[in-house]
């Protein structure tokens, strides 16, 4: 427990949390080690945890028959993984597969949600952390959609590159 508190305290993501809030999170967390190719979660599976990667990397993937598997984003140490635990019906939208031996802090979603209901300040502080990652990922997704390196038909024709 104390070791987990230290890990969470020293994690850049949680630097804004008070020691009391860190303790609350640590009581709902565990460290998991994963081999290459392990599925942390699968599409439509129950979103009963969320994670902060502390080592390694994970590919967020989607798979469909006849279409294959597409990796949409690679997450690395320091990244937060999983939002579906916050919203009913608490089911994952994508697959998350490790790309190398990895380690993560896994938080128990149901008990964190319960704590949110009882302690709104705790909920607010944790939600701010999650929302920061959501904002970063939305910005990144928008940049991906822009297809910045592709041909732009409206480009004015100047080219220095």
């Amino acid at each position, binding site marked *: 427990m104390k070791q987990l508190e230290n890990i969470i305290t020293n994690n850049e993501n949680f630097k804004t949390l008070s020691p009391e809030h860190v303790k609350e999170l640590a009581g709902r967390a565990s460290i998991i080690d994963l081999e290459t190719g392990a599925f942390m979660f699968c599409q439509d599976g129950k979103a009963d945890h969320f994670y902060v990667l502390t080592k390694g990397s994970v590919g967020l993937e989607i798979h469909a028959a006849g279409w294959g598997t597409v*990796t949409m984003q690679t997450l690395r140490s320091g990244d937060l993984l999983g939002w579906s635990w916050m919203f009913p019906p608490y089911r994952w939208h994508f697959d998350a597969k490790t790309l190398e031996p990895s380690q993560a802090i896994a938080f128990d979603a149901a008990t964190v949600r319960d704590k949110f209901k009882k302690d709104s300040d705790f909920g607010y502080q944790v939600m701010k952390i999650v929302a920061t990652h959501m904002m970063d990922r939305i910005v*990144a997704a928008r*940049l991906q959609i822009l*297809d910045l390196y592709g*041909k732009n038909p409206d480009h*004015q024709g100047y080219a*220095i*590159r």
Partner: protein
Amino acid sequence: MTVLLDDPMVTTPWVIDQMRRETADTFTFILKPVKGHGRGSFQFEPGQFNMLYVFGTGEVPISISGTQEQNGKLEHTTRVAGTVTGAMGKLRSGDVIGIRGPFGSHWPIENAIGKDVIVVAGGIGLAPLRPVYNALVGRRDEFNKIVLLYGSRTPEDILFRSELEKLSANLDIEVFVTVDRSTMGWRGNVGVVTSLLRNVPFDPRNAVAMVCGPEIMMRFSVHELQRRGLKEEEIYISMERNMKCAIGHCGHCQYGPEFICKDGPVFPYNRISNLLGTREL
């Protein structure tokens, strides 16, 4: 040292010694001076550009992507984007093009001595930075950490792939490549290049960043670098606009009080931060 030109508006003929296909829509010209028209060795600073003239079609500014000092050859890498670059793409070994230059400002390699250096490239923006990372590696002892981040559209669009693979194998430079969209068989990073900046190891109190790519990519890279604590004056970006004369006379590339061809293309971010995002410019 930059060679002073007798007349910067007069083009010099160079022959295409080799045309190397880099990706489906990018290629590199390896050029040598036409006999009797050479000026000795071609000297330039990383980040500078030449005006390349396709006879009968037109002239475009293209960054210098390298030189081969031992034989005086010059390299330009470009992508087929318009009429002139389209015509360039149809040229072959033995064809002759005109060259004026080099022009413009350069990347601040001397300012990076003793500091961590973060090189951020997106798409064809890797080409103007190629002389930078080659210079950094060639003078490795003079710099602290060297980090190269490169974002490409897809794995098939990765420029200078074998060079990047060799660099990654080099233990004293860190190379991270990411693609916006993965395709089958790609096991590398997927995501925009800006997201790599979050966890890259460097000391923001003693670092310089050089960023080149589409303007939007550069703006978001700057945001991330600032979030990491890097000072505005230590962030350099390379701008592109419609350059014609390349010597600040015609005004086509005017950017507020600056001329991209003469005052740029490489600027410290703090010099043009108030101009970026201004729609009228």
